[in-house]
């Protein structure tokens, strides 16, 4: 067999190959397109358990990732999220992204790292959830006996510790950032790939949310009631929210207030002792 001797360049050869996968978190699917196979591998690894690579799989939203150097590579720089004429502009030292909810498409410019796209996904999910009464919150979460529990607190409050102490029959959803969606008769907690010190991606599953515990470390395990106002303040303080947008601020505020009216919130003081899980019901 011989190949035809020709100088013509096949049309497709002038176009970069597109690699693609779908990342589904909290039941919301986002297709990510890249021309870089190595970056695709980074995403496959980062979002293991939350990705699908079926080309024909429908996704609710789609992002093209353009790999290149951004002006700065500082992931600790302040994030800016603003809305102009229906398009969301998201910017941090290490990325610049745009997203149009109307067309369901977006674009990210970043270097080949998993942290920048991780931040964009978190922002996009917070914007989507705010309109549905849900949110992302700094908390560990786990399912036990068919019910989900959240353990909220700032860094150092014990999210990773309570996760490490979880009994074998508990399913860990995350040790860092929990995903909460409003349901018909309450709220659902979903697993997330957003891991903290445990460096372990959560299980991609969900369960009805039974309670939220505000974590505090102490000499012994105990649970105390929290006033609904304190609960509201704590939930607001721990929620992830980035948008500089008045409508979104109102939605997030109302979402937090609705949540504390419907979900029991307690303060959980605990010693680093597995018996604390005997109190979680």
């Amino acid at each position: 067999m011989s190949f035809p001797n020709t100088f013509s360049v096949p049309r497709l050869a002038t176009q970069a190959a597109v690699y693609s996968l779908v990342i589904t978190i909290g039941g919301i699917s986002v297709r990510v397109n890249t021309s870089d196979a190595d970056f695709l591998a980074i995403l496959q690894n980062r979002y293991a358990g939350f990705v699908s690579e079926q080309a024909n799989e429908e996704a609710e939203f789609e992002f093209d990732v353009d790999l290149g150097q951004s002006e700065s590579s500082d992931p600790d720089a302040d994030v800016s999220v603003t809305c102009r004429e229906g398009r969301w502009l998201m910017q941090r030292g290490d990325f610049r992204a745009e997203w149009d909810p109307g067309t369901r498409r977006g674009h990210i410019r970043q270097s080949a790292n998993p942290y920048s796209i991780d931040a964009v996904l978190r922002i996009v999910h917070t914007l989507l959830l705010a309109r549905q009464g849900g949110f992302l919150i700094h908390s560990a979460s786990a399912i036990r006996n068919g019910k989900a529990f959240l353990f909220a607190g700032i860094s150092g409050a014990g999210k990773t510790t309570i996760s490490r102490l979880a009994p074998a029959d508990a399913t860990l959803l995350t040790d860092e950032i929990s995903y909460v969606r409003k349901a018909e008769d309450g709220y659902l907690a979903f697993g997330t790939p957003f891991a903290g010190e445990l460096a372990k991606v959560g299980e991609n599953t969900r369960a009805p949310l039974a309670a939220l515990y505000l974590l505090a470390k102490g000499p012994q395990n105990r649970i105390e009631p929290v006033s609904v106002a304190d609960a509201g303040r704590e939930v607001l303080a721990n929620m992830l929210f980035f948008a500089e947008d008045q409508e979104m601020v109102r939605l997030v505020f109302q979402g937090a207030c609705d949540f504390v009216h419907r979900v029991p919130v307690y303060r959980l003081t605990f010693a680093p002792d597995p018996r604390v899980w005997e109190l979680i019901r």
Partner: protein
Amino acid sequence: MSGRVYVARSARVAARKLGEEMLVMSAVDSTLFTLNPTATILWEAVDGATLLDEIVNSKICSEFEVNGEEALRDAEMLAKDLAKHGILLISDQPITPANSRVPERV
């Protein structure tokens, strides 16, 4: 501040009463305020059309055993403080939706 004082809630806030406390969030900068029960009564009563001293007399002095002048002074201080943060509006004229707009941030 004395004489004719009208107070209205800014349209650029979100507020919800949780238990006995009123939580108010500025939609502009996300600052969260918590109002105590007395401040909550004022928050709920100010409508931009009723003079502040009338509100204090009818809602505060009748409810709590406080001196009218002292209560009005406290109410004016609270209103000024919250107005600084942009969550209340103060005027010597009735405040209507038409004249209550605060310039948008640019």
